[in-house]
C-alpha cells in the first residue's frame, strides 16, 4: 500500500503553522488577478474562502445549488462556536482546546491539523465580531461564553440558538462585498455535477443551471470543494433536504481519495420520527441535557402509559444509572447508543412507526420544580416552542421525546495539511473534508473548522499551490473537457430515459433505512455484509425502475434529486466497506464485536491508529484502501471513560 503524505510540519507543535506559513510561496499581488479559482458551496467554509480569496485579488467563481448563497446549511447550526480565548479565566488555552478535540475525536485525527484549528479559533472570533456578528454579551458589554457538550471550560461563543445563522450571514456579507467589488462572480441555483481533471490537475467543473437546465464547463487554475457532509445518505437526518454528496463523490470518482467514510455522527437529541411520510429530522440543542433528565419505563408494559402516571420507582434513568459521574451529559455517541439499546429492548416511548417505538423521554419536571418555570423559559424557551410547533405537545407539561439522528459526517475527502486532496489543485474545506474531527466531533467545533479553513488556511495554502503553476492555458474545446461534458449529459439522459415506476424519493428512503439499520449507531460484521449485498441490488433496481417526468432543459426538481440519490447509492456501499474493515470501535464508529462486556467501545490502537483513505478503482471493482498512520507525539492516547 502506498503511504499518504500529509505534508504536516514537524517540530514544536505551537510553531508548526507559523513555520509552514513562512515556507509558503507567495503570489505577487499583480499576478493574482491572472488566476481563476472555483469555489463550490457557500456555507461557512466556501463563503469565507471565496470572500478572502477575492479580497486577495484572485478571480473567484462561486457556485451554490440554493437560490442564494445565504441559505447554505451552516445556517442551521444552533449551539455555538468554540474558541480558546480564555476570556473566562477558567484555565482554557490553545493546548487545552487542541487536547479536548484530539481526545473527543478518539485519537483518530492529525495532531498538526487539530493544533492549527485550536490556534486559529481565536482569530475567528475577532473576525466575526469585526463583521458585526451580534454575539451574546454580558452586561458590561464583553462577550459571553457558555460551557457546551460537557466541556469543563466555558469557551463557546453564541448568538442565542442561531449562531450558525449569524456566522454564515457574516461570511455571506463578506462574500457580497466581493461580488459588488467584481472579485467574485456568484452562480446560485447552479449545481456541480462533475470535476474536470486535466493532466493530473483539477482544472474545472461541469455544472447544471437548475433553472434552464444548461450544462456547461467552467475552467480555473484551482478548485475548492466546500460542499458539506453526506449525512443525507441515511435519508432521515438533521441536514437540509438539499445536502448531498455529489460534488465530493464525483471528485472521488476522478481520483480524490475518500477518507474514513464510516465516521458519521449521530446526534442524541432529535425529535423522533412521527410517521412514514417524515422528510427530515429536527435537532434539539444538546444544551437541553444540562437540565433535562433522560429516562424510559423500566418495564415494556408501561411504554404506552401517560408518562406522568409512571411512578418514580418504575422509571429507568439509564444514563444516570450507568454513568454516575457524567450522567445525562455523556458524549453524543454514548448517549445515542444507550437510547438505541433501551428502544431495542422494547422500552421506547411515543408513537409506533413501522412496528417499533423509537423515543426516550427528556424530562424537565424536576428542573422546573427546582428552578421554577421562569428559569426554564429563560434558558430553553425558544427550543420548547420549536418542540411544541413540531409535535403539538407542551414540553412544560409532558416530557419531550427524543431519538438520535444522523447529524454530521467526520469522514470526507482526504486532504493534506494544505487542505489539498490527492488530486493536484483540488482543495476541500469544511465538513466536506475529513481533516480535524477524527472519529467524533465535539459540539461547537463544526463552525470553528469551516471558518478556519475558509478564512485562515486556504488563502495561504491555495496561494502556495498557485505560485507553482502557470495561469490559464486551457479552453473548453480541450478533449478532456468535452469528454466530461459528454459524460454528464449522458448520465442525465440515462436517468430521464429509464421510464420505470418508482420515484427517486422512494429509492432514497429505502437506502436510508438500510444504512440506518446496518451502518448507523451500531454496526456488526453480519449486518454490514447484508448491506453490502443489498446496496448493489438496490442500485441496479434504481437504474431499471426510476420514474421521472419532464426533461433536463427546465427546472426539474425530481431530476436533481435522482442524480443525488444515484451518488448516495454508491457512497453507501463505500461506507459499509469502510465500517467492515475498521475492526475496532472508536468514537462514533461502534462495532458490536469490539466492545467490553458492559457494552463500551474498545479501540484497537495497535492496528487502527490510522486514517483509511479509499481510492476509486472503476465501477464494479473493489476500491483500494490506503492508510495514513497517525502519530501522537503530544497527547498519549487513552481510553475515554465517562463512568
Amino acid at each position: 500500500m502506498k503511504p499518504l503524505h500529509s505534508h504536516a510540519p514537524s517540530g514544536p507543535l505551537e510553531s508548526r503553522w507559523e513555520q509552514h506559513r513562512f515556507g509558503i510561496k507567495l503570489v505577487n499581488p499583480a499576478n493574482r488577478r491572472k488566476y481563476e479559482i472555483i469555489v463550490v458551496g457557500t456555507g461557512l467554509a466556501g463563503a469565507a474562502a471565496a470572500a478572502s480569496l477575492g479580497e486577495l485579488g484572485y478571480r473567484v467563481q462561486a457556485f451554490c445549488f440554493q437560490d442564494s448563497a445565504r441559505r447554505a446549511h451552516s445556517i442551521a447550526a444552533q449551539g455555538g462556536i468554540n474558541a480558546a480565548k480564555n476570556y473566562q479565566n477558567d484555565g482554557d488555552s490553545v493546548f487545552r482546546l487542541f487536547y479536548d478535540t484530539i481526545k473527543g475525536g478518539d485519537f483518530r485525527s492529525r495532531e498538526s491539523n487539530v493544533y492549527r484549528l485550536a490556534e486559529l479559533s481565536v482569530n475567528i472570533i475577532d473576525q466575526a465580531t469585526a463583521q458585526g456578528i451580534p454575539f451574546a454579551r454580558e452586561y458590561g458589554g464583553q462577550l459571553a461564553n457558555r460551557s457546551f457538550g460537557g466541556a469543563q471550560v466555558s469557551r463557546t461563543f453564541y448568538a442565542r440558538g442561531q449562531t450558525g445563522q449569524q456566522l454564515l450571514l457574516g461570511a455571506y456579507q463578506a462574500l457580497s462585498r466581493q461580488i459588488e467589488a467584481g472579485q467574485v462572480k456568484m452562480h446560485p441555483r447552479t449545481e456541480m455535477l462533475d470535476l474536470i481533471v486535466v493532466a493530473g490537475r483539477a482544472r474545472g467543473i461541469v455544472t447544471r443551471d437548475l433553472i434552464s437546465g444548461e450544462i456547461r464547463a467552467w475552467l480555473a487554475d484551482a478548485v475548492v470543494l466546500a460542499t458539506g457532509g453526506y449525512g443525507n445518505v441515511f435519508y432521515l437526518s438533521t441536514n437540509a433536504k438539499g445536502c448531498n454528496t455529489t460534488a465530493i463523490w464525483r471528485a472521488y470518482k476522478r481520483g480524490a481519495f475518500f477518507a474514513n467514510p464510516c465516521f458519521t455522527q449521530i446526534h442524541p437529541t432529535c425529535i423522533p420520527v412521527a410517521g412514514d411520510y417524515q422528510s427530515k429530522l429536527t435537532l434539539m440543542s444538546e444544551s437541553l441535557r444540562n437540565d433535562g433528565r433522560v429516562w424510559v419505563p423500566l418495564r415494556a408494559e408501561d411504554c404506552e402509559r401517560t408518562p406522568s402516571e409512571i411512578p418514580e420507582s418504575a422509571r429507568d434513568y439509564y444514563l444516570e444509572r450507568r454513568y454516575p459521574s457524567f450522567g445525562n451529559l455523556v458524549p453524543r455517541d454514548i448517549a445515542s447508543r444507550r437510547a438505541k439499546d433501551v428502544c431495542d429492548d422494547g422500552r421506547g416511548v411515543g408513537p409506533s412507526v413501522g412496528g417499533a417505538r423509537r423515543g426516550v423521554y427528556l424530562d424537565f419536571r424536576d428542573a422546573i420544580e427546582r428552578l421554577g418555570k421562569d428559569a426554564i423559559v429563560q434558558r430553553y424557551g425558544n427550543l420548547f416552542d420549536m418542540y411544541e410547533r413540531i409535535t403539538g405537545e407542551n414540553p412544560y407539561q409532558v416530557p419531550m421525546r427524543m431519538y438520535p439522528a444522523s447529524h454530521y459526517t467526520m469522514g470526507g475527502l482526504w486532504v493534506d495539511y494544505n487542505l489539498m486532496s490527492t488530486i493536484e489543485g483540488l482543495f476541500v474545506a469544511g465538513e466536506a473534508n475529513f481533516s480535524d474531527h477524527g472519529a467524533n466531533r465535539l459540539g461547537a467545533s463544526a463552525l470553528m473548522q469551516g471558518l478556519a479553513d475558509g478564512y485562515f488556511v486556504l488563502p495561504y495554502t491555495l496561494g502556495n499551490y498557485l505560485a507553482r503553476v502557470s495561469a490559464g492555458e486551457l479552453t473548453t474545446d480541450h478533449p478532456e473537457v468535452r469528454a466530461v461534458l459528454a459524460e454528464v449529459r449522458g448520465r442525465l439522459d440515462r436517468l430521464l430515459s429509464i421510464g420505470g415506476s418508482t420515484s427517486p424519493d422512494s429509492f432514497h428512503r429505502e437506502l436510508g433505512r438500510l444504512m440506518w439499520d446496518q451502518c448507523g449507531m451500531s454496526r456488526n460484521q453480519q449486518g454490514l455484509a447484508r448491506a453490502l449485498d443489498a446496496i448493489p441490488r438496490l442500485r441496479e433496481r434504481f437504474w431499471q425502475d426510476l420514474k421521472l417526468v419532464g426533461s433536463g432543459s427546465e427546472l426539474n426538481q425530481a431530476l436533481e434529486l435522482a442524480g443525488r440519490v444515484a451518488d448516495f447509492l454508491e457512497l453507501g456501499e463505500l461506507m459499509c466497506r469502510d465500517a467492515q474493515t475498521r475492526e475496532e470501535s472508536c468514537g462514533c464508529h461502534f462495532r458490536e464485536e469490539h466492545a467490553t462486556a458492559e457494552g463500551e467501545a474498545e479501540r484497537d490502537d495497535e492496528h487502527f491508529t490510522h486514517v483509511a483513505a479509499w481510492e476509486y478503482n472503476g465501477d464494479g471493482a473493489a476500491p483500494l484502501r490506503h492508510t495514513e498512520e497517525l502519530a501522537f507525539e503530544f497527547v498519549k492516547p487513552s481510553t475515554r471513560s465517562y463512568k
Partner: protein
Amino acid sequence: MSDRLLKLTLQVWRQKGPNEPGHFERYTCDTVSEHMSFLEMLDVVNEGLLVQGKDPIAFDHDCREGICGACGMVINGVAHGPRAATTTCQLHMRHFKDGDQIVIEPWRASAFPVWKDLVVDRSAFDRIIQAGGYVSVRTGSAPDANETAVPKTDAELALDAASCIGCGACVAACPNASASLFTAAKVAHLGLLPQGQAERQQRVLQMVAQMDAEGFGHCTNHNECEAVCPKQISVRFIARMNRDFLRALLTADEPSRLRRKPA
C-alpha cells in the same frame, strides 16, 4: 399522541415559466396526517403526481427547520399560512380541519418573478445586500473581539434585526410589495453596532437606492410585513432606517457614491 387523518382539497398555482400564463389546479388528498408538516403534505401530493407521470409542483425548500429562508408560499391568502412566527416548513397540518380547501400561491411581486409554480426569483435581495449590507473588514485585520465593549441591549436589539432569514414573506404580504422590512433589518443590525458606524450613512443610502432600483414599492405603514414575518421582525426597524436615511441624505459627505443598478 393521536393521529387524525384529514381530507383536503388544494388549489395550487401552476405556471410553467416566467413568461407563461399560470392557473390554479385542483388536487384532493385524503390521507393527510395531522402531524405532517405542510411541505410533507406537498411531498405526498408530488409523489402521487410523479408516479402518475404528471409534473410535480415545484417549490423551494431546504432546511425544513425554519432558518434557511428557502421556503415560502401564500397559503389561503397569508404568506407562510395561518400560524404566527412560523415558516411554511414549520407549519403543521394539525392547524387545518378535515374537509378544508387550501389555496396555495407563490410570493407575488414584480421584483420576484415566478420561475416555475411556487418558485420565485429572490435574487433582488442578494443585490440589496451587495449594495452595502456588510462591514468592510479584511480577513485577518480584526482587533481583539473584546476590545470594543458593546452594551448588551444594543447587541440583543441588533440580533433581533439580524434574525431575518430573507424569505421574502414581507414583500409578499405588503400591498406595495415593498422590501422595507428586509432592508431595514440589515441597516438596523449593522447600524446598532459600533463596528457598523464607519459605513452607516453610505450603507443606508446605497441599500435603499438598490431596493428602489429593483422595483420594490415604498412603505406606507400597513405593517402587514411584521404580521407575517416568521422571525417577528419589528416595523420599528423601518422607522429607524428612515431616520438613518434622512440623516444620511442631509449630511453624507460622498453623495456621488449613491448609485443605482438596473434590476
